[in-house]
């Protein structure tokens, strides 16, 4: 697609930009800052605030000849428009002349700023935005020293209005630019903010339950050009100039949003730097300029007083503090003893470096490395995953996206957003799930399958399985797709089901040749940020984890809490001779361990993560680690030393180099490569006028894709997994299907006081007909006998769910990782 280019002059600059570009963006390109409030490059322009008024002239065209009239000197004659025009709404045109430096323009800026200030409280000294506020900057540039508006006549309005628990509104500071309202409507389609009243009385309201009900709410505080919207987490917390930014990667889901930790020394932490807030860092290929509220507000875990800061060893049945030296020596001796009996169970929260060293350590003993997950299929995403040049932001007309068995909105909010936007740009979106999800609204084809029959549904898409007619239409839509990305998740599925699903998805991609080139391939909607990295290094879940753990002589658990997850695993683990746990907190598994090694949290160390899109990205230390904790990769290296292995433990970057030498997927990569930054367009976050909000520029690296394992046309290594399916019929019992919620009761969320109200609870949702069949009614407490254990749940009716099964979130205190048959009993009230 060739884009028509347009050449114009802006002050003394000549610039060439694609047709359709707004004057304001063209100016940005040549470093001319036209002040804006209502305009944001990610939103439709509305031309409301009138801050961006400029003089515009256009070439005079002779009516008769259709030719541009020339001046005596041969330059085109320019006719200036009588009125100033808004640079944010006016598209560029050939030969246009934009003047931003005239007295007329300066006067307009002064006058509009004065208008805004007539209603704006001058409370910069106590305003959270002070120091990074476009209005403050423009007032410095254009405001007059004294006010002609009588102070007593100012509008007075409420200053601390909670829109929900997360976001506060200061009505006096609001300048009615509507950015927040438009963000909620246009970008994330959570229309829970709007204007109320009119004229000078216009104010922002929310009427949702809970207030400001959107998992993207925090972004409005970034794009609000004044201090009207602030987060409950940060407000009054610090001044922007007191904080130091540290680039990082959000580790809450497999998207891998680029973020910044803003850090300040705090007296209450005895002068140590602490994280004050989490901000998005622009990466147009990953998260653009947004992050979700989990990523923004969950950061409190690392300052928790419950952190482990000393190795603990079981002495006389009690976990007792010991020195690192003693702990490491004991552990090394146990590992040696274990030999092939060593089972290392790692969680996808670990960094690439941690996983690599743990793998080397384990392999040297002849032991087994396992990934602790309820999801299979990584052997396929490794081979058919995304490669260099892929960017969901470039998918649109002519492309297709399939999302199957995933509630992306809850599992990976930024992917949801980007897939939605791709669909809005014209990509054909096919969503398949056993139940409706929020992505259906944007899908060209929203298809349903019977609980558990996800793999069959994909087979149906290929024409290999009998499916309803709607599948046929979807199949035709897929056939001509230029590019195809398939997301598969674990909604209503467990390990076996997802593995079968991944395999079928792989078949689909191979059949149509959609792999081995940019923007094509398979993406797993994993539970953890680095599950993909683990798969790349050969980690895989055990088909029978209970069996594997039972056989272990020594179990080494890192970022994995099988005991907390599943009573059956607790029993299995009890059979191991010795259990070593690397953890931040005293988890249920740690409590049962023989040796507990305290580890550093992500913001306290260096490392890298591999996103679900196979993008390796670096994170940097933001705050010092508490005394006594070590990064997992260091611990593994130090254990290795004691076993005579040469593991790298000095720096994460060096470990990464080893990894790059050892794993073809990482070949040629280095920390340097991961830290290359490219100029991002639109320019949003320059530290000058906060044009696009307080999102950070990306100077610390966009990361880079892993190497392709397969090229287009190459066949993947066969994987011998039968298309076996999971439980689909529970007989007389209730079929209970697990699904993932963003705010689950996972170990990290619970430390974020603010999120408590949004955290999922053990609610069993089901169709009223199904409920009736099992004698259940709305709101009753019921007891579920599941996988041999009892759990109590609250029953919720949901007309939208298909009959025949019930849905229950994972990680809400009920051990449910795969579809299960449950006996249900209504609990007696006492």
């Amino acid at each position: 697609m060739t884009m028509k280019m347009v050449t114009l002059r802006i002050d003394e600059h000549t610039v060439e930009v694609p047709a359709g570009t707004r004057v304001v963006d063209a100016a940005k390109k040549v470093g001319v800052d036209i002040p804006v409030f209502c305009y944001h490059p990610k939103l439709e322009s509305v031309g409301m605030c009138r801050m961006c008024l400029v003089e515009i002239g256009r070439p005079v065209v002779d009516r008769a000849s259709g030719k541009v009239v020339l001046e005596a000197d041969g330059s085109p004659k320019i006719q200036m428009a009588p009125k100033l025009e808004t640079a944010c709404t006016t598209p560029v045109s050939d030969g246009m002349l934009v003047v931003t430096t005239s007295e007329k323009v300066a006067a307009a800026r002064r006058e509009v700023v004065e208008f805004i200030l007539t209603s704006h409280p001058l409370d910069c000294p106590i305003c959270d935005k002070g120091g990074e506020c476009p209005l403050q900057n423009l007032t410095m540039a254009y405001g007059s020293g004294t006010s002609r508006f009588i102070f007593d006549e100012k509008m007075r309005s409420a200053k601390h209005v909670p829109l929900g628990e997360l976001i506060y509104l200061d009505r006096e500071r609001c300048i009615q630019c509507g950015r927040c309202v438009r963000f909620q409507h246009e970008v994330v389609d959570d229309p829970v903010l709007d204007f109320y009243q009119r004229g000078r009385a216009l104010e922002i309201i929310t009427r949702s339950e809970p207030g400001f009900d959107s998992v993207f709410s925090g972004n409005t505080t970034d794009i609000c050009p004044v201090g009207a919207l602030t987060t409950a987490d940060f407000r009054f917390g610090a001044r922007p100039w007191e904080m130091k930014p540290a680039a990082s990667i959000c580790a809450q889901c497999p998207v891998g949003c680029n973020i910044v930790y803003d850090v300040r020394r705090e007296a209450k932490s005895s002068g140590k730097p602490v994280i004050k807030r989490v901000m998005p860092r622009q990466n147009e290929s990953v998260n653009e300029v947004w992050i979700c509220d989990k990523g923004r507000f969950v950061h409190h875990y690392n300052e928790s007083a419950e952190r482990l800061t000393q190795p603990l060893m079981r002495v006389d049945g009690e976990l007792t503090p010991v020195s690192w030296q003693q702990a490491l020596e004991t552990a090394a001796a146990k590992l040696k003893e274990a030999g092939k009996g060593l089972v290392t169970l790692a969680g996808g929260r670990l960094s690439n470096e941690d996983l690599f060293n743990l793998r080397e350590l384990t392999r040297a003993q002849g032991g087994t490395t396992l990934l602790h997950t309820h999801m299979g299929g990584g052997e396929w995403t490794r081979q058919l995953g995304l490669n260099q040049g892929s960017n969901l932001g470039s998918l649109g007309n002519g492309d297709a996206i399939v999302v199957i068995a995933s509630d992306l909105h809850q599992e990976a909010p930024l992917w949801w957003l980007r897939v939605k936007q791709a669909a809005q740009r014209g990509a054909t979106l096919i969503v398949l799930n056993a139940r409706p999800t929020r992505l259906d609204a944007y899908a060209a084809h929203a298809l349903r399958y019977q609980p558990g029959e996800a793999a069959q549904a994909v087979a149906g898409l290929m024409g290999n399985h009998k499916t309803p007619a709607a599948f046929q239409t979807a199949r035709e839509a897929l056939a001509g797709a230029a590019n195809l990305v398939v997301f598969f998740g674990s909604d209503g599925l467990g390990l076996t089901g997802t593995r079968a699903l991944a395999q079928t998805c792989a078949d689909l991609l191979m059949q149509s040749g959609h792999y081995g080139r940019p923007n094509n391939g398979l993406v797993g909607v994993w539970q953890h940020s680095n599950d993909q990295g683990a798969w790349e290094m050969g980690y895989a879940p055990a088909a029978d984890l209970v069996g594997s753990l039972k056989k272990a002589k020594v179990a080494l658990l890192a970022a994995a809490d099988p005991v907390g997850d599943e009573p059956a695993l607790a029993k299995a683990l009890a059979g191991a001779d010795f259990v070593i746990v690397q953890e931040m907190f005293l988890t249920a598994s740690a409590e049962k361990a023989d040796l507990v090694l305290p580890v550093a949290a992500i913001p306290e160390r260096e490392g890298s993560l591999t996103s679900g899109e196979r993008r390796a990205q670096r994170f940097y230390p933001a705050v010092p680690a508490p005394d006594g904790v070590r990064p997992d990769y260091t611990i593994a290296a130090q254990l290795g030393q004691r076993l005579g292995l040469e593991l790298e433990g000095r720096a994460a970057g060096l470990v990464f180099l080893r990894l790059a030498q050892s794993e073809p997927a990482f070949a040629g990569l280095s920390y340097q490569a991961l830290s290359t930054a490219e100029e991002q367009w639109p320019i949003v976050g320059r530290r000058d006028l906060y044009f696009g909000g307080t999102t950070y520029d990306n100077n610390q690296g966009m990361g880079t894709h892993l190497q392709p394992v397969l090229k287009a046309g190459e066949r993947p290594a066969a994987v011998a997994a039968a298309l076996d399916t999971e439980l689909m019929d529970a007989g007389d019992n209730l079929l209970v299907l697990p699904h993932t919620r963003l705010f689950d009761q996972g170990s990290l969320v619970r430390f974020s006081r603010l999120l408590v109200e949004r955290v999922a609870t053990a609610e069993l949702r089901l169709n009223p007909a199904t409920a009736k069949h099992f004698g259940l009614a709305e709101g009753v407490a019921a007891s579920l006998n599941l996988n041999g254990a009892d759990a109590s749940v609250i029953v919720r009716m949901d007309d939208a769910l298909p009959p025949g099964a019930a849905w229950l979130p994972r990680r809400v205190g009920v051990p449910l990782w795969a579809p299960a048959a449950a006996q249900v009993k209504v609990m007696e009230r006492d």
Partner: protein
Amino acid sequence: MSQYLLLRHRELPDLDKLSGYRAQGGFETFKKAVNDMSPAEVLTTVKESGLRGRGGAGFPTGLKWGFIPNNLWPHYVVANADESEPGTFKDREILENNSFQFLEGLMLASFAIQANVAYIYLRGEYWQLAKQLDRQIAELEEAGLLGKDLFGSDYSLNLYTHLGAGAYICGEETALLESIEGKLGQPRLRPPFPAVAGLYGKPTVINNVETLANVPLIIANGAAWYRSFGTEKSPGTKVFSLSGNVVNPGNYELPLGTTFRELIYTHGGGIPHGRKIKAIMAAGASSTIIPASEEALDTPMDYEEPQARFNAPLGSASVIVMDETVNMAWLVSKTVNFFKHESCGKCTPCREGTFWMNRISHRLVSGNGSSADIDLLDHVAHQIQGKCLCALGEFSTMAVISGVEHFRPDFETLVGN
């Protein structure tokens, strides 16, 4: 004068009943158009008649219809019956008493641009009128004058009313469209213009009630006949709403080009209590205030002269008359308060500027102002100009600037010395 084109109910019996209207040949024109004329012929006749929009801007109606592109469908026609400009009550009389003529005009407009659906946007306060129109539309459907495949042709047309709910800004055509779409009545950016992207993003013609009420007679009698009324550039008659300090306020249908003097003195009966006339506003609250000089009184009311002589557009031709007892600062405070109340709040200069002017003029009128406030008021008005998203902001400055310019002593009385 007195030939009524628009207020024909004043001389013809039962024009407000379908039978009465039909007895005068009503809907024959529409029938003829659908049966025997091409849409282009209807359009051309309107174009040639020189009819100009009666909603305020005086834009040539035929030209507007001609902008509708024929590669984008469906098309819509929207009748603007929002009539909220202070001092304007002409559409109301047409709708109350001669609604069938208006409806026929709307139907002809729809046919001319081949719209199959047209909406009538009435201000919410015209509640009774909406009910009446709903009944009349039902009658037309019953009589086979509206509906599917009219008169055996393949042309179908349905009309619907849509009530506003108390917002002057919804008279502005793009705010009106937003309002029909169920949104806040805030004006849209232009371009794109409604002719290209109007209601539901589709090509749309928006016309004032009075504009449309002219159409049946134009099509029936031809463009030349129509041009026999009014002036060369402003043909036709116009309903002038006369209010304020006059003996006989009310609607007067007169040819465009009639002088203020004739309207106020001959028809309106002059100023009560033998008082002297002080000032005139020709376009409701949005007017430039014209000091009532002899020259002013002899100015013809059309789309050119008041504008040329006093920078005072005719607008909706709502003539408000002030006698010598009226303090113009008080008057300005009334208009400013109106615009402050009606500003939609979308753009900064109007939202903040009308609010600010309201504070200042209130201060002045309540006797707490200073003479610096008079300058400030004038200054703020100038500061609003040229910066707003729609014309309302601009309207709010007209009375202020002309008021301070011509009647500064009235302001000064209020601040003492």
